Structures are given as structure tokens and as C-alpha cells.
């Protein structure tokens, strides 16, 4: 236990060092204090933003958009990927679309989604959904294609019908790759969320960063940026724990 704590401390030591360096550099005025306010002032601004509810309100709206987009992407992309692995026709039809859409920078779609769904939640959710669907679909597709013939046949010979077999064999076989795809999607969701809110929005983390930046409240701006960074980090750690639990059958 103690060695675990020690390991965690050593692991995140670089972050602590960076924080101290930040404070020292800013306090000694080594850079323009407008461009880099001391970390302690950023922390004070964070407390202020929390107290007046700005951060919570905008954060709630961002998290809602992110969660909805990601959940939709996992549900639709997961199903689509597995279906493509199973039915050749679907594979032939969808695969070129995935290939075309894959290299496209999804942020290029921000104006398009706004054109379709306006400035509110809908356009952000659609953008995150579209962007996150790609890695999830590819993960599910590769995972399901890799499912072992012998496992499929074993299930069939023990009396599983074809739908039953898909649920009992194809889905769990696809799970490791699918979960990896979802991890990529999780990171992508944060990127798309903040960039779309930064450009066109009246709410959310991205909006708040842009607003505080343009009104010269740089301490507050840094506070929101750091909040998003820590939320992203926390979400990824939580997700890793979930994967470990779901895949504990692996060596």
C-alpha cells in the first residue's frame, strides 16, 4: 500500500515540478505576467469561478454534450462495426465511407453541424457523435472480425442460435478492440467539444475559455483550461480502471 502511494507520487512528480516552476517563473517576472499569471492566482481565479457558479454551469453543459455524443457514438459505432464484420454487403457499402471520413479533420465539420442544428447542444452532440463514431466502429469491426471460428462453432454445437451466438461470442471477442476504440473516442470527444464551443457557442468550457481570454481575465482562462485538462485526465484514468475490470480474464 505505502509502496503504491510512493509509486504514484514518483509517477506524478514531473507535474508537481512543472507547477512549482510555473509559479517561480511567473513570480520572478521571467515572462510577461499577463501571458503567464502565477499558478496561485490561477487557483484563486478557479475558486472564484466555482463560487459564482460559472464553471459549474458551463461545465455541466459541456459534460452533457460530451457524454451524449460519446454514448451515441459507442452505441451506433459498436453495433455498426460488429454488423459490418458479420455481413459482407454492409461491409462493402460502409467501409469506403469510413475510409473517406477517417482522415478528415472533424473540426472542419463544425460550421456544417451548426448549419444543420444551430448554435445549441444539438450541433455539438452531432459533431462529437460523428467524430467519435469512427474509432469505435473500426475497433468493433476489427474485434468482431478477429473472433475465433472455433469459439463460434463451439457455441453453435452447444445449442446457441445465431443471435445468441453473436451476443455470447462475437461481442465479447470484439470487446478488447472495441474498448480501445472507445478510449480514442473519449480523448477525441474532449477535443471536439472544446474546439466547437470555442468557435460557436454561448455555453460550455470552450465558450468560457474564449470569453475569459477575450475580456482579459487570463487567470480565469488558465483556470478553465486546467479544469478541462484534469477532467480529461480523470476520465481517462477512470476508463482505464473500467477496462481492467471488464477484461480481467486476460493474462
Amino acid at each position, binding site marked *: 500500500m505505502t509502496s503504491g502511494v510512493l509509486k504514484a507520487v514518483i509517477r506524478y512528480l514531473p507535474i508537481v515540478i512543472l507547477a512549482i516552476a510555473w509559479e517561480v517563473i511567473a513570480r520572478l517576472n521571467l515572462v510577461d505576467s499577463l501571458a503567464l499569471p502565477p499558478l496561485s492566482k490561477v487557483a484563486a481565479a478557479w475558486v472564484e469561478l466555482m463560487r459564482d457558479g460559472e464553471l459549474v454551469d458551463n461545465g455541466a453543459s459541456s459534460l452533457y454534450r460530451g457524454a451524449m455524443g460519446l454514448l451515441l457514438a459507442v452505441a451506433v459505432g459498436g453495433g455498426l462495426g460488429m454488423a459490418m464484420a458479420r455481413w459482407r454487403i454492409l461491409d462493402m457499402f460502409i467501409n469506403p465511407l469510413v475510409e473517406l471520413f477517417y482522415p478528415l479533420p472533424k473540426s472542419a465539420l463544425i460550421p456544417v453541424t451548426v448549419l444543420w442544428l444551430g448554435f445549441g447542444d444539438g450541433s455539438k452532440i452531432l459533431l462529437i457523435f460523428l467524430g467519435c463514431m469512427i474509432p469505435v466502429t473500426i475497433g468493433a469491426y476489427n474485434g468482431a472480425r478477429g473472433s*475465433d471460428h*472455433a*469459439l463460434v*462453432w*463451439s*457455441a*453453435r*454445437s*452447444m*445449442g*446457441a442460435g445465431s443471435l*445468441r451466438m453473436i451476443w*455470447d*461470442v462475437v461481442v*465479447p471477442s470484439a*470487446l478488447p478492440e472495441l474498448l480501445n476504440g472507445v478510449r480514442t473516442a473519449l480523448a477525441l470527444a474532449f477535443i471536439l467539444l472544446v474546439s466547437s464551443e470555442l468557435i460557436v457557442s454561448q455555453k460550455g468550457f470552450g465558450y468560457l475559455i474564449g470569453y475569459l481570454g477575450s475580456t482579459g481575465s487570463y487567470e480565469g482562462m488558465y483556470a478553465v483550461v486546467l479544469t478541462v485538462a484534469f477532467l480529461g485526465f480523470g476520465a481517462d484514468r477512470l476508463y482505464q480502471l473500467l477496462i481492467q475490470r471488464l477484461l*480481467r*480474464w*486476460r*493474462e
Partner: protein
Amino acid sequence: MDGQGQIVIEGVNHTYRPPRGRAVLALSNISLEIRPREFLALLGPSGCGKSTLLYLVGGFLPIERGRILVEGKPVAKPGPDRGIVFQHFALFPWKSVRANILYGLERQGLPRPEREKRAQAFIDMVGLRGFEDSYPSQLSGGMKQRAAIARTLAIDPSILLMDEPFGALDAQTRSLMQTELLKIWQRSPKTVIFVTHDVQEAVYLAERVAVMSARPGRVKAIVETKFPNRDPSILRTKEFAEKVDELWNMVRDEAIKAQEITGS
């Protein structure tokens, strides 16, 4: 509830069609009859289609020409009357040993208390008590194959299809498993089709050995390999050695031909 299985294979062909490249005739005009509770080995060089024939009996591949009857009915799809054991165990890696064995019993719709009792009985039979909650990745090769055999036997198929089941095991484990399989089979005889390329294994385990030729796979000869008893001591008798020699000569010719065909 012991097996009454009888398998009739009549003029079966099978063409292997790879996604790329040209089609290959894998099995040509195979006819074979397996008596109830008989232990038959399919012996041949690798690539002779012996596993394919087993999969056809299992109903995993479509039959293109000829027909296969099991208890008088044509095979159309897999079923719990034909249990299968694969070389690489094919245990569900995400399920514990117990959950693997319970799976078939659940699909058969057995009531829960009976399922649990039956699963435990088969776990005990193959000597995996204490490993019920282990995942396959935590077991040795021999233990994995024991679990796979228990899973298949638990649903009480009248026919047991075994696809080189001991091929992935080390020599010591393999010989222990062979003896154990014979014990299980003697206790509750089932019709067994056992695919192997190991001549000694075929002679030791089977009552009859169907020797298959290289591509296209044909049944080249059927040899009786019944001995008065089947304990490991027969492995050292002269009769046993002669039988192995006889079959070895047949297989060797085919193995050489198979190599020439593959060009290796």
C-alpha cells in the same frame, strides 16, 4: 442415456475456396460408416482434409456433394448430439472454468440446481476441482483441454468429434490425456471420431483407423486396430509395434506426396 449414434458418410466432396487464389478439391468422394460407440481415428498427413471431414459431420460447413447421415437424419447444422473438442481448446477466454462448463447446460435449458451439480461432477471427473473460478489464461495446456473435454461431455453428446485434441500438448501430458480419454470412453462409451496425424496415438486409442490420402483427401484404407485390452502396457507389445509400422508405411507415402504438392 448412452450414445446410440451412427454416422454414415456417402460420396462426400468438399472444395476449399480461399478468398484469393484458386479453389482446391479438399475431399473427394469420401464414404465411411461409423458404428455406434465405436472409436474411429481419421489419420493422415496435414492438409489431407481430415479436419474438414470432421467439421462436415459437425455441421459447421455446408455439404456440397454426397450426404452425411447421423442416426438416419441428414446433417444440416451443428447440434448438441455432436460434441466437439478442438486442438486449441476453444474455451471462452472471458468465462471461468465453471462458467465454460455451465454454458452448454444453460443452452440446453437444464434447471439451475441440476446445472450446478452436473458442472461440478464433470469438473471433478477431469480433476479440475479447485480451479473452478480460474480463467483459461491461468491454466496449463493440459488443464485447458481437460476443461474443454468436460464442457463437451457435460451436455452428454452421443457423438464426440475430436480435432487433434492433444496436438498442442507436450509429450508427457499428451500420453496422460490419452489414457484418461480411454478411461472416460470405457466408462461411458460414445461414438468417437478422433482426428490425428500421430500414428501411435491412432493405433492406441482407436478401434479402427481410416487412413486418408493427400490432396484431394480420400479414404485410402481402413485398418482394424482392436487389441484385447487398452492399458498403456500394450504400447510395448510386438503386435502394437507391427500395427504402428503397417500404418506408418501407408501414411509416409501420403506425407511425401503431400509435401510434393505443397512444393515444400
